[in-house]
């Protein structure tokens, strides 16, 4: 049966929310401890290198666990499929802010192109930081020039990660409904029709054929 105007859509499952928040907490720990290991003014102030280093490394090695666990969630796997794929609308969305802002402008799926790129960047960063961090930690297995190279990549990618994560948090702070969706799991249809019009249309079509949305 058709959705009423004040209907609420299921956006993020429990597994997805648990994944997001556990990764978020670990990332914040990694960034803060990383800053204390890297920036001279902080490493002098905070000191305690061995403790801070241990906290940083443990947080890094824990990071893949929620991701691996989330792979068991059908809802998450379906969303990764959405995040991976770009249609011509995604390129249009990226090219023109004005086209986006126009009412009924570019159709946007469950995730807009910015969110898709962010997810890819986040996954790649986790892989690269874990790899280069492992070279720095298990350094006896690697020749010195590889350790130097790993440190180089780890240094500069960490700065890019900070910039991108700050951008992510900034965007989240700018949309309370989107934020609440990652807390409660649901978002109002009216918000979806504005922000993710093609997803809203898909959900409406699904509702009218009475097939249930995945909730696992």
């Amino acid at each position, binding site marked *: 049966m058709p*959705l009423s*105007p004040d209907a609420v859509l299921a956006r993020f499952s429990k597994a997805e929310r648990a994944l997001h928040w556990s990764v978020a907490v670990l990332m914040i720990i990694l960034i803060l401890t990383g800053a204390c*290991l*890297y*920036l*001279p003014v902080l*490493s*002098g*102030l*905070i*000191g*305690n*290198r*061995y403790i801070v280093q241990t906290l940083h490394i443990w947080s890094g090695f824990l990071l893949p666990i929620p991701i691996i666990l989330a792979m068991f969630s059908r809802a998450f796997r379906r969303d*990764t499929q*959405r*995040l*991976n*794929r*770009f*249609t011509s609308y*995604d390129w249009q969305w990226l090219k023109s802010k004005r086209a986006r802002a126009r*009412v*009924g402008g570019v*159709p946007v*799926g469950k995730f807009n192109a910015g969110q*898709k*790129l962010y997810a*890819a*960047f986040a*996954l*790649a*960063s986790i*892989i*690269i930081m874990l790899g*280069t961090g492992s070279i*720095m930690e298990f*350094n006896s297995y690697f*020749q*010195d*020039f*590889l*350790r*130097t*190279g*790993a*440190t*180089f*990549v780890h*240094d*500069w*990618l960490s*700065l890019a990660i900070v910039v991108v994560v700050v951008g992510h948090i900034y965007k989240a702070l700018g949309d309370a409904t989107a934020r609440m969706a990652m807390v409660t799991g649901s978002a109002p249809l009216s918000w979806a*029709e504005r922000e993710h*019009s*093609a*997803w809203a*249309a*898909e959900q*409406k079509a699904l509702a009218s054929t009475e097939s249930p949305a995945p909730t696992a």
Partner: protein
Amino acid sequence: MSNIETNTTEVAPEVPGLGSPVGRRVVLGMVGLGIAGVAGGSWLSAGMTDAINSTVPQVSGVFPGAGGFRIYTVISGYPSYDAASYRLTVGGLVDKPLSLSLSDLAAMKQTGLTKDFQCVTGWRVANVPWSGVLLSDVLSAAGVQAGAGAVNFNSFDGAYTESLTMDEALRPDILVATSLFNQPLTDEHGAPVRLYVAPMYGYKSIKWLGGITVAKTVDPGYWEKLGYDVEAWVGQSNGRSDAPIA
């Protein structure tokens, strides 16, 4: 009110899985760049460091990635000292135990060394000018006794310790250092006196040096107890810019 359309145009519903796998391409592309960066980073960073230091040298003070030092301390902050009452003690298997003030050290023969500083985890600062007194000169002044096989060091931070075999300690590239970059050591770099062990990874270069003890055997130090090598020679194939002293 009964109508569920809100916009003027009907939007085509999203079809999940339609489109090109840009996400996967971004991930693979970035990981590929990361691998290239690990392989070539040693050379890239040396070039980058030169470029940054010749244009905006202040950057390396903030972002060590631009060829600067990372500052390590294992206690909270840096230990304090008083310049007038500071003494470097030299004891153990020596004929004449010493208690050297900063002016005593300044009066001894000074040696300069310009060498790379290489950390075991990979970061490197190229061509760093150090000066101070050769460790072997300090040991001669105290008179090393027969049977002495090692030199152990302790920091006045109360936590950090290090060691060298006697053969290593007598090398011409090991300094009891008092200056760095042609300035007296600053607190973050181990003021007023530290060790600089040029041929080995940076953790051997104990900061805030308090005492030197000549002994029969090596006493594994702070990081060695946490799993690092006692013999911390920098590897042959490390792309270091300075020439090793045999």
